């Protein structure tokens, strides 16, 4: 466990160094938040959606901006590049499991960028007037369940990132692979449009796909759109998905490594 912890720590610290990046990241998220909220206000003005009022929608959007780093699928900064240029061979000579190594690396980067960025956005959201800002959670149990959901979301996000790593391995194109995985994830995780605003038929499918466990579920528990019991059941489904996806990811990476031809010898 020690070496993996060190890898995590290295990447966590590395990310903390970029002050300017974090500050400008927060500003970008705030701007995006306003953009989305005004768009959906324009939508919800004439037609209302059950269990998703304008103020609930605003909370959902602000949570999404605050925890944007969880939602965005990115592989560890160097992983994709190293696969493309062949430097990845250094990773093979370490006495560590490749999947776990990359998992920790990505997890470290992701967690530190979440921790750096969420407090200012949450504070700003809470200061804005209701209907435009972030409301408090509907109840204490809902809030606790929301926190558990966030941890699940963080793990799920990293797990799905590993599929982008796998695709990069197969295609040797980091850019193409990330954008495929991000498009699919974005569409079905509620990042592009909140899931409650999708047509009911589509929601019935998307609710059971792994993508919505990244952040959609915890956010909906927070705003009260999903109740405590229902939320707990869904969380269990989410954890089941997580285990399945980690196993599939490990198997895929292992098979890819066996066949891999490293670029540049």
């Amino acid at each position, binding site marked *: 466990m020690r070496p993996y912890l060190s890898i995590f720590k290295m990447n966590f610290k590395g990310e*903390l160094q970029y002050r300017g990046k*974090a500050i400008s990241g927060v500003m970008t998220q705030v701007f995006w938040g306003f953009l989305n909220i005004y768009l959906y206000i324009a939508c919800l003005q004439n037609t209302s959606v059950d269990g998703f009022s304008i103020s609930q929608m605003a909370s959902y959007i602000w949570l999404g901006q605050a925890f944007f780093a969880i939602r965005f699928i990115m592989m560890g900064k160097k992983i994709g590049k190293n696969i493309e240029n062949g430097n990845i061979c250094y990773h093979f000579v370490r006495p560590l499991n490749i999947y776990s190594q990359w998992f920790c690396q990505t997890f470290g980067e992701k967690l530190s960028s979440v921790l750096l960025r969420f407090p200012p956005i949450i504070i700003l959201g809470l200061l804005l007037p209701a209907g435009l800002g972030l409301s408090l959670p509907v109840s204490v149990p809902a809030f606790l369940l929301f926190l558990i959901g966030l941890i699940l979301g963080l793990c799920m996000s990293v797990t799905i990132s590993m599929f982008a790593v796998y695709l990069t391995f197969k295609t040797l194109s980091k850019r193409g692979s990330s954008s495929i995985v991000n498009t699919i994830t974005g569409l079905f995780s509620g990042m592009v449009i909140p899931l409650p605003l999708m047509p009911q038929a589509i929601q019935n499918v998307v609710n059971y796909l792994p993508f919505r466990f990244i952040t959609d579920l915890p956010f909906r528990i927070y705003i009260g759109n999903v109740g405590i019991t229902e939320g707990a059941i869904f969380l269990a489904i989410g954890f089941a998905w997580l285990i399945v996806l980690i196993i599939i990811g490990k198997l895929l990476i292992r098979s890819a490594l066996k066949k891999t031809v490293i670029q540049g010898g």
Partner: protein
Amino acid sequence: MASIIDFQDICKNFKVPLRAKGKFSTLKNFFFRKHKTIKALKHVSFQVEEGDIVGYIGPNGAGKSTTIKIMSGILNPTTGSCTIDGFVPWQDRKKFVRSIGVVFGQRSQLWWDVPVMDSFELLRDIYKIPQQEFENTLNLLNEALGLEELLNRPLRQLSLGQKMKCELAGSLLHRPKILFLDEPTIGLDAVTKLAVRDFIKFINKQWHTTIILTTHDMSDIEALTNQIILIGKGQILYKGSFDEIKNKYSSTKIISIEFAQEYDEISLDGYQTISHERKFATIKNLPDKEFHIKDFVNQISKKYEVIDFQVDMISVDEILAQLYKEYGLVER
């Protein structure tokens, strides 16, 4: 006649962020950041005459690259004036850059994925070189460097040495009056190194090209020129003949000795021990003491039992190391 390069009292300052150290430094750096001004060049002046080859040497971070960047018009100096071939580098950029060629030893100006010839043809168009002149120049470079077989291959397939040959050719296609070479022999094998040196000499003779060369390899300097400029900590420390410096230090001899038995300490009047391990030792004479073989043999045979010894001249690299040390350029 005016010098082709006239560098007058040039200063260059950079602002760099200051990083805090110690506990919570990551967090501290995150919230507070201070800047400090680094003086990369301090009142640097020198002249270079047309057709000369000048070695520009100094330890890492001395200001060599900054000087080259100012001379090629990439950076503006903070204060001071500079004329090169009648131009001020940072004015009239388009006209000025026609008279210079630059080779950065660790970067490339040629395209990675396409045959070298295509890159050359693009350079022909960039510099608007007439076809006939282009062909003549290329033939000449071809003969001198042996490029024939390389031209139709993409750059990525070439070895480091072959790449450097192509880089050199690429920066000479427009026949610049002045050529800046930033570490042109870095990483090259012995044979290629010699070829590159011969080529630099050839071009200098053929076209009377003025060449400014930065390098860490003192054998480059020995092979190419007697004129050096030594820079350290942003200041010019020495300008002039390389032989002069060599003569100054050539009185120092390095003596390797093999003893018949182990001694705890070697001490000889006027000599300094460089290394000592078991029966072997290396010593040198102190600067104020001239080396006399008779005196040395007398001294050593009185105190110790010697099997063999060998006297060597100090090497060029050691001279440079000593120079750096003398000027306080070596970090401890």
